[in-house]
């Protein structure tokens, strides 16, 4: 398994050189294994959540009937004539999810806005410090960034200055996020490199071998070895 693990990780990276069979094999394995496992995991989730609770001590648990009905209704996706049943149950699921999540919008808006507004004036009671100045700046930046999103259409012209400043605030956010994303994601690569060096068994030779193969291919295309007949279009 450690060999497979390392092969998959670095084979995916070989696409940076060019689209090649190693990458395609890794990609196909990831998709196939993922689809199969997701199916098994969800059968298990339904089993633990519903099937095991449908009959309790010989009595039927009526509350479990609805998940069964909804589940079977989902299967109508495979019956063209009953596609509307599938649509209805999809919409129900979607909107029930929205119904739960929907209040978070106003709730978050209210709590964040109130929190920022209250903290903004802390410098008056607590004195000026890095923290209180920061809290004031946060409230200002928050209002400016909101103005960029909110004031559109006929409200755009009178609020041009605010929206421009809002764009600067969003630019700061973008710049910081891009860089931290790069640094965060590079850690994933190093984590795997450390694993190839320190893991048992050591598997660092797999990416090294891949690199050598790509180097050779750069000067002498390996496709020449297998001929055109076995070429697979990408």
């Amino acid at each position: 398994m450690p060999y497979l693990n390392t092969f998959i990780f670095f084979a995916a990276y070989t696409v940076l050189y060019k689209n090649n069979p190693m990458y395609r094999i890794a990609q196909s394995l990831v998709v196939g294994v993922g689809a199969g496992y997701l199916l098994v995991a969800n059968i298990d989730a339904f089993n633990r959540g519903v099937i095991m609770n449908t009959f309790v001590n010989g009595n039927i648990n009526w509350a479990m009937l609805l998940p069964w009905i909804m589940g079977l209704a989902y299967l109508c996706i495979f019956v063209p004539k009953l596609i509307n049943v599938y649509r209805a149950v999809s919409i129900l699921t979607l909107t029930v999810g929205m119904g739960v999540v929907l209040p978070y919008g106003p709730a978050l808006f209210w709590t964040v806005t109130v929190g920022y507004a209250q903290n903004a004036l802390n410098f008056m009671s607590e004195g000026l410090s890095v923290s209180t100045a920061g809290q004031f700046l946060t409230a200002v930046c928050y209002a400016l960034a909101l103005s960029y999103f909110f004031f559109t259409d006929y409200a755009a012209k009178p609020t041009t200055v605010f929206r421009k400043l809002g764009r600067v605030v969003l630019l700061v956010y973008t710049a910081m996020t891009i860089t931290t994303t790069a640094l965060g994601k590079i850690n994933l690569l190093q984590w795997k490199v450390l694993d190839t060096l320190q893991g048992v068994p050591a598997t660092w030779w797999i990416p090294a071998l891949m690199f050598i193969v790509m180097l050779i291919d750069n000067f002498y295309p390996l496709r020449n070895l297998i001929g055109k007949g076995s070429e697979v279009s990408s």
Partner: protein
Amino acid sequence: MDQIMANLPTVLGLIGMFILASLYWTDPGWSFAVTLRNSVTLSLPWPVGIVSVLLIRRHVRNIMRGESTLPYDVIVVGAAILMVVLGLVSGPTDVTLKAIYANVNIIGTMSVISAIAISILSPMIRIYRAKTWTMAFLIGLSILAFMTYSPLGQMIHPIIPQLGDFVQIYISGASDSAFWISTYIGAIALITRMILLKEKLKPN
């Protein structure tokens, strides 16, 4: 009546949402709504599982048509069948099943995600040029972030990571709040339009 029938999925959905919204603001909650909400949660494995079936079906069709991607389609379908058979025969907690998943899927996904770093660093070197004041500002902030999130800034002067953290916490944080709240408000606007039947929800 015709209009209601034509918009049956939307109407059904809205009823569901109404029940849920009623529940959310009441304590301890309306028992029928609780049952409905629990049922929806418990039925979620179905749509997720169906997505997997549809994906596998697509590759089975490619095999039957003899598409040029045949060897790779065979790998996809073969791997999926192997996982399903293992799961059904040995159970979902089977050690081999979990090991294959972790050693193929998890690591493969992480690999793709980690490649994002390369796709950021590469253009930073190739095309980050101070052609405008905005670009110069972006480059300056990027350098500040690099110095803040590595020991580099601290080694030059402690004020550098302090400044970077200040920007991140107080400016980026505020900007992020505004971004997400605007997204939420946008979603509410969309749902309001749905309630007014100006938007239709029709999944495939």
